[in-house]
């Protein structure tokens, strides 16, 4: 039990000869918090799922020579998407379900569940429907279930991705408490900005599918760097004519107020940046602007209330580049996606020559026969942005457009947007947590904090 988790000669692949994860030797000490850190696609989630015994059962092949000194039954896993990890309707029922699976006698269940729920302070939520809980509450419920299961190893796959700052801090503290109580906590994450307070071990995953244990000094440097953000010069939004105006705008989610704003205006035909901690409501705001969510108060676009636009008419006015690229696609191959946007799109920039040029610059020219869902994350992202730019809506919302892109691709995307803006300017609102290269590109900058949209341009001026 107290021996460290040892991994030797592990090799995992989905297609023969193309390993997505190779670990020659790796030791994960018990009773500590260990962070698997690396960009998306580097194999850190894969390792977690192998440890949890979910892979290769749910796909792929594990090399027969792989050795792991951890029984899958010792571990339980928490997933990135809070709402895709429960079979039941309430936290209490889910905990009962888990304990039934472990064949715990029914008489022991209530005490065990109550204790676990008290540990993560969700006793008051025990009998609430999951659909009425916020993402953070669901994640804490998931942790409570794992604690009730009394598994010695807790695995977490990007557990903070959709959590607001308060819940994130709380969850992290509770995990730290579990470590102090003798549990082993292993977290996969691509973002280090949350971990300064807990000082974890860090194992770095590279894009070459290799792993490396970092020294404590290197860890400290990484953690400090993760919290340093470049300053983005920005002009006050009031300088420009407004195209979209919000008054007494309130956006809520179950159990949570995300935005409560007396006045907000988006400058016409400029590029505006929207930042804020993860879970603060940036994506939700974009969804509301795309008429995929509800709001209270008033939102006027070109003088007309957003609610009054029909879905069809709004689709011609406003485009949303979804955070999850695959959501954007409607067809099968790259060529079909391009053909649809060519047929329906109205952006004057995309003449056949310019389109070809754009495809070459984005590295998509040779991929036209490929199935879009088989492209890499970065290729999907580039194609997604391209087909939406071709549509030429006067209002374009981009949710994390640079995720999974290397610096060169991100630059190519920005140049393409600039070229489009030069031909026919549109109002662009970009949500991005990655700020490199944005300093001279955006005109205005809003920061969402404490349920308010702060105009950074005014703060700087």
């Amino acid at each position, binding site marked *: 039990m107290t021996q460290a988790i040892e991994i030797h000669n592990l090799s995992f692949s989905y297609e023969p000869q193309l390993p997505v994860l190779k670990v020659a030797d790796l030791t994960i000490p018990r009773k500590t918090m260990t962070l698997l850190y690396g960009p998306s696609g580097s194999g850190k989630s894969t390792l977690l799922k192998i440890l949890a015994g979910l892979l290769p059962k*749910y796909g792929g092949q594990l090399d027969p020579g792989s050795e792991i000194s951890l029984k899958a039954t010792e571990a339980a896993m928490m997933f990135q998407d809070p709402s895709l990890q429960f079979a039941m309707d309430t936290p209490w029922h889910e905990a009962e379900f888990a304990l039934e699976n472990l064949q715990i006698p029914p008489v022991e269940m209530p005490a065990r569940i109550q204790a676990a729920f008290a540990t993560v302070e969700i006793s008051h939520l025990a009998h609430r429907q999951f659909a009425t809980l916020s993402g953070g509450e669901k994640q804490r419920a998931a942790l409570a279930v794992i604690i009730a299961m009394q598994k010695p190893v807790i695995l977490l796959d990007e557990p903070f991705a959709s959590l607001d700052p308060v819940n994130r801090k709380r969850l992290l503290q509770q995990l730290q408490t579990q470590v102090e109580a003798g549990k082993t906590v292993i977290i996969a994450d691509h973002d280090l900005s949350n971990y300064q307070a807990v000082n974890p071990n860090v194992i770095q995953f590279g894009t070459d599918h290799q792993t490396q244990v970092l020294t404590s000094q290197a860890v400290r440097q990484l953690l400090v760097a993760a919290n340093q953000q470049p300053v983005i010069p920005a002009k006050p939004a009031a300088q420009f004519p407004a195209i979209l105006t919000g008054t007494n705008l309130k956006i809520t989610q179950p159990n949570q107020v995300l935005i409560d704003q007396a006045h907000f205006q988006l400058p016409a035909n400029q590029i505006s940046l929207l930042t804020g901690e993860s879970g603060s409501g940036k994506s939700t705001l974009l969804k509301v602007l795309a008429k995929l969510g509800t709001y209270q108060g008033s939102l006027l676009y070109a003088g007309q209330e957003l609610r009054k636009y029909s879905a069809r008419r709004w689709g011609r006015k406003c485009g949303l580049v979804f955070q999850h690229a695959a959501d954007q696609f409607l067809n*099968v191959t790259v060529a079909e996606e391009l053909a649809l946007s060519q047929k329906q799109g109205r952006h004057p920039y995309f003449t056949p020559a310019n389109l070809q040029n754009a495809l070459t610059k984005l590295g998509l020219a040779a991929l036209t026969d490929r*199935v879009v869902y088989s492209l890499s994350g970065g290729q999907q992202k580039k194609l997604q942005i391209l087909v939406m730019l071709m549509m030429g809506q006067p209002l374009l919302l981009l949710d994390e457009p640079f995720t999974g892109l290397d610096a060169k691709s991100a630059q190519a995307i920005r140049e393409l947007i600039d070229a489009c803006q030069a031909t026919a300017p549109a109002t662009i609102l970009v949500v991005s947590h990655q700020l490199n290269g944005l300093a001279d590109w955006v005109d205005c900058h809003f920061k969402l904090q404490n349920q308010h949209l702060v105009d950074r341009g005014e703060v700087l001026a």
Partner: protein
Amino acid sequence: MNRQKIDLTRTPQTFCWGVFLLTWIEIYFHKGDISMSKRYQLKEVILLALIGIIFGVIYYAGDFLYNGLSIVLTPVGLGPMANDITMGLWCMAGPMAAMLLRRPAASFLGEFLGAAGEMFLGGQWGASNLISGFVQGVASELGFTLTAYKHFDWFGLTTSALTSTFITFGWDWFRNGYAHFSLQLNLILLIARFVSMFIFCGVLVKLVANLLERAHVTKTN
């Protein structure tokens, strides 16, 4: 008129036995597969139920279609045709599940588990959803059984559309009183139902299956 009624009270049993017989034929056809259908994995069970529910959710848009058609057609005496015209939409989950998983029992489970899910979704039909789900599931499964589970293509889909047409029609013969309509009306309704089944459970399902196949997500054994 009295005589006609006596006939009717006899035929229900015949029909019931018919459906039972068909169920047993299906079970016989995949004797070995019954254990195989037991081996449906958890994720496939969830997928089959999800497919059924998704088609239900999308169909709610079609509910208006049914109501609109009813209101237009009833005054000219063709009211029940609204049911037949939209019937294909109701039965799509089964053939879709079969085309996706290409296994015995997939069609039945897609339709039946979907109905089980829908019965809790504010569906005012409540538990009686299960009965229609069962009949429709058996009906669409039979098409793939008769083609020996070798034709997850036009042939299988058309056969399934045919078996669905006849069995659900037989069901409505009693349940919705089709036995009391004129022969002429019944023929019109039967044709309308087959056209609907063919368009939705045949053509539309095939188009979706083509997309899935080209996206490489369909099971290929």
